[in-house]
């Protein structure tokens, strides 16, 4: 039994040793995603009827490629943080928890890398 008070534990960053870092990162990525999402949706709605040439010329532009990279990586990072909390909240068996957390991490990194590579392949 620990004699430390709850406040003392929090000040010592608790057992996870990272305090509010996860929450803060969720918020920072959320703030970044608001303008990026508005940019992405307003760009994409103009291209629903566009043929291949129009779309690839659009994504060829350095500004668009950089914004797409930011949107995809920030979005997938935000997704990873969110899914992590859902697993922490609902999955209580240690084995499935570790398995699902790894699955989420690997999937997010794989999808993000694939999307990022494709954007670079188009733009470079």
């Amino acid at each position: 039994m620990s004699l430390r008070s709850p406040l003392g534990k929090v000040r010592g960053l608790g057992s996870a040793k990272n305090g509010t870092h996860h929450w803060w990162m969720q918020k920072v990525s959320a703030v970044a995603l608001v303008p990026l999402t508005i940019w992405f949706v307003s760009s994409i709605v103009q291209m629903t009827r566009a043929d291949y040439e129009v779309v690839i010329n659009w994504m060829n532009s350095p500004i668009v490629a950089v914004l797409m990279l930011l949107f995809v990586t920030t979005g997938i990072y935000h997704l990873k943080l969110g899914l992590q909390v859902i697993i922490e909240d609902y999955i209580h068996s240690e084995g499935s928890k570790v398995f699902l957390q790894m699955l989420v991490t690997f999937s997010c990194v794989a999808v993000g890398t694939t999307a990022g590579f494709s954007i670079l392949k188009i733009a470079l």
Partner: protein
Amino acid sequence: MSDTKRPLSPHLQVYSWSLEMALSIFHRATGVALGGGALLITWWIIAIATGPDAYDQFRTVMSSITGKVFLFAFTFSLMLHMCNGIRHLFWDMGKGFDLGDSRRSSKMVLFFSVFLTALSWVIGYGMILEV
């Protein structure tokens, strides 16, 4: 939990559903749905990187009724998650916790997510104005 002497809050099913509760769980549900949306965007980018045939294949699937239903659900999930997420940022600053404020912001979230979804589809697919 057995040594807890404090009163515990009643279980979720005891409460009658409110707009705030519905939006809270929908925020999480749309967050998961947007994971599917991330896969859709990745497929779209891969298709563009692969070439005209792959891109046409993507467009054919997305032009089907099933594709459009998915795209519509994706648009609405994105807008709801974004609008409600902005509300969360205000809550994080300690603003808007009053009962009246939170009911008003719930309605605003609902209104803006429906409005922005409709706007995107009107511009994107010309559902009202045939472009």
